[in-house]
C-alpha cells in the first residue's frame, strides 16, 4: 500500500526511511523532506496541550498527481510520514490510521530495547519486517 515510509526524529533528521521501488528512492526522500514543512505547520496549528489519537494523526499532508502523503506525529515529536500511491483509491482513512498505529507500536517496541539509543537509526529487524509487510500488502 505504502510506497514509502519514513520515521523522522524530533530534530527533523530521518531515523528510518524505506521505499518499495528501489529506483526513484531519491524522489521519495525529497517528497518526505518537503512534507515536513506541512507537518510542522499542522503541529503548530494545534497549540492545545491535549493530544489524543485523533490529533496524533495528521491526515493528508500533500497530494501530488501520483502520490499522497500522510503524516502522524507522536507525543515526543517523532514524525511518521507515509507516501501512498494515488491510484490506490480504495485506501481509506481508517486504513491509513491503522497503519500508523501499527507503526507507532513497532516504534515503541524499538524504543523498549535498551540497546537502542534514541536518535540512532532504527536497525531493528522486527521493525523492518513490519514495514515490509505494510509495503508489500498492495501486491
Amino acid at each position, binding site marked *: 500500500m505504502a510506497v514509502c515510509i519514513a520515521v523522522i526524529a524530533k*530534530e527533523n533528521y530521518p531515523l528510518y526511511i524505506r521505499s518499495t521501488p528501489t529506483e526513484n528512492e531519491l524522489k521519495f526522500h525529497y517528497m518526505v523532506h518537503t512534507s515536513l514543512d506541512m507537518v510542522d505547520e499542522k503541529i503548530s496549528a494545534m497549540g492545545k496541550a491535549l493530544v489524543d489519537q485523533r490529533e496524533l494523526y495528521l491526515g493528508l499532508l500533500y497530494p501530488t498527481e501520483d502520490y499522497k502523503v500522510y503524516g502522524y506525529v507522536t507525543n515526543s515529536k517523532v514524525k511518521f510520514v507515509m507516501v501512498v500511491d494515488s491510484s490506490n483509491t480504495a485506501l481509506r482513512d481508517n486504513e491509513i490510521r491503522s497503519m500508523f498505529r501499527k507503526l507507532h507500536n513497532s516504534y515503541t517496541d524499538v524504543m523498549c530495547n*535498551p*540497546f537502542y539509543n534514541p536518535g540512532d537509526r532504527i536497525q531493528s*529487524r522486527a521493525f523492518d519486517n513490519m514495514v515490509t509487510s505494510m509495503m508489500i500488502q498492495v501486491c
Partner: protein
Amino acid sequence: MEAAAAAAAAAAAAAGGGCGSGPPPLLLSEGEQQCYSELFARCAGAAGGGPGSGPPEAARVAPGTATAAAGPVADLFRASQLPAETLHQITELCGAKRVGYFGATQFYIALKLIAAAQSGLPVRIESIKCELPLPRFMMSKNDGEIRFGNPAELHGTKVQIPYLTTEKNSFKRMDDEDKQQETQSPTMSPLASPPSSPPHYQRVPLSHGYSKLRSSAEQMHPAPYEARQPLVQPEGSSSGGPGTKPLRHQASLIRSFSVERELQDNSSYPDEPWRITEEQREYYVNQFRSLQPDPSSFISGSVAKNFFTKSKLSIPELSYIWELSDADCDGALTLPEFCAAFHLIVARKNGYPLPEGLPPTLQPEYLQAAFPKPKWDCQLFDSYSESLPANQQPRDLNRMETSVKDMADLPVPTQDVTSDDKQALKSTINEALSKDVSEDPATSKDSNSLKARPRSRSYSSTSIEEAMKRGEDPPTPPPRPQKTHSRASSLDLNKVFQPSVPATKSGLLPPPPALPPRPCPSQSEQVSEAELLPQLSRAPSQAAESSPAKKDVPYSQPPSKPIRRKFRPENQATENQEPSTAASGPASAATMKPHPTVQKQSSKQKKAIQTAIRKNKEANAVLARLNSELQQQLKEVHQERIALENQLEQLRPVTVL
C-alpha cells in the same frame, strides 16, 4: 584404472572448463586425480547401491551426471577428522550447497579443501590452487584398505550400503537443518580459539552430532572398527546434539548404544543448538540472581544492557538479541527471557549465526514449562518429573501473584516479598503435588495475562524501585509508608484514633454539666437499668457490668441518660472496683457521691483530653516523620531525573538546522 583416470581427467577438465561463476579451475596432480576419482566412485557407487564394481561406477562418473550421495560423502568428510564447522565451510565453498548435490566438480574441490584444511591452510578457494598433499581420511581398516588402491574392495562397500542408506537419510535431514541454519546468515564468523567453559559447552552440539553419527555408524559395523567411544564421551556429556531424531531411529536398530541415555529428554525440535541444557540453565539462573535476587521479577533494561555489554558483542547484535528474547517488548527481562537472551549471546559468541526468529526451544513458555525453577525445586522435584508442569504453573502463578502484588502495592518491602515467596512456595510445594494437570491451561492463561499486565506497569515501578533501592542497601529496603497517606485526611486521623476510641469515647462525649439526673420519661428504662445494674453489681465479674456500662455509653440518647448511666455505672463501677482494688476502701466508695462524681467526671474529662492530646501528638510525629521520608524520596527522584536529563542531553546528537 585407465577408465577411472580418464574419467577423472574428464572430470577435472570439466571442473576446469565449466561453471564460470563457480569455483575456479582445479588442477589436480596424477595422484590426486586417482585418489579423488576413487573416492568419488566409491561415494557414487555406494549411493547408487547397484551391483558392479569399480569400472562401471567410474563409467558413471561422467561429468555432471553422477552425484555422490550425501551420506557416504559426509562419512568421508567426517573421517577427515576436521571440525564440523570447517566441513560446513568446505561444503559451502565447493558449491555443493548451491547446487544441492555433490557433483564431481564439487566433490573434487571439497576434497582439495579438506587437504588444505588438514595441512593447516585456511579454508579458502585460493588455498587449493597450490600443490597439496592428499587428504587423509582416518577411517577404519576397511575403508583404509579400499582407499589405498584396492578397487576390488569396493565389494565391501556393498555390505555397508543398507546401513549407509539409513544413515544417508539421517544425515540428509541433519544436513538440511544445518544448511537451514547456515543459509539464514551469510556471514559465519570464523571460529577463534575455544572460549570459556559454558560457551565451550555450547560448541558441542554441532560437532556432537557429527560424532554421534560417526559413533553410531561405527557401532553398526562389526568388530574390525576401532573404538570411537572414548572420542565421543569427552566431547559431549549431556543432550543437545543436532542429530537426535536420526539417533532415535538408529538407536532402535542398535541396542548397546551408550549414547542412548542422552536421548531421554529430547523432544522433536530440530533446532538443537538452541536448546538450553540443565547445566546452562543453572548458570543462567545464577547470573540472573546476581542481577536480581528475586527470580520471579524482572531485570530492567539498563541493568541487562550493562550486563550483556560485558559479553563484548557489538551493539547491533545485542540489540537484535534483545529484540528476539524480549517477547512481550516491555523493556525488562523475566527469567525465561533472560535465559533465552543469554543463550543467544552464548551461541553467537561461539559462532552460531543468530536466528531469524526466536527458536521454539527458547520461547518463554517453553522455558518455563520445560525446566523447573532452580535450587529447591530441583531437589524436591527430581522424582516428580511428570508433575513438573503442573507444579510449575501454580508456582509460577503464585510467583506472578506475589510479584504483581509487589508491583501493585509498592509499600511492601521486597524482602518481605521474597520471604513470603519462599513461604508461599513451600506451601504450594505441599499442595501442588496434588494439583490437577488440567489446571494448567487456566493457570498458564492467568500467568500469561498476569505477565502481560505488568507491561505498562514495569516502567514506573522498576524505575521507582531502582530509585528507592539506590538510596539504601539492597538487603534492607526502605521503610515505605504502609497505610498512612501523605495527605493528612481526616480518615487517617480517624484510623489513628480508632484504637483509642473506646478509651476516650466517654471523655469525648461532651458531658453536660452536672444536672440532677432525674429525668422522667426515661425513668422506666433507667429503672430497669437501675434494677439491672444492682443485680449486676452482685455479679462477681466486673467485666460483665462494665461492658453493658460501656455499651450504654455509645448509645445516642438524651444527655441526661448518659449521665444517668454514667452516674450509675460509675457508681457501680466504683462499687465494683472495690473488690478488685482492695486499696480503695469502701470508705472511698461510700464517699463517692454525686458531687465527687462530677469532679471525677471533670478529671476524667481532663484525662481524656490529655490522652487525646497525646495521641494527636503521636500522630503528628508519625506524619512528620512520614513527610520527611517522602521529601527525601522526592529529592532522590529529582536528582535521578536531573541525571537522566543530563544523560539525554549528552547522548542527543547535535542538531543541524
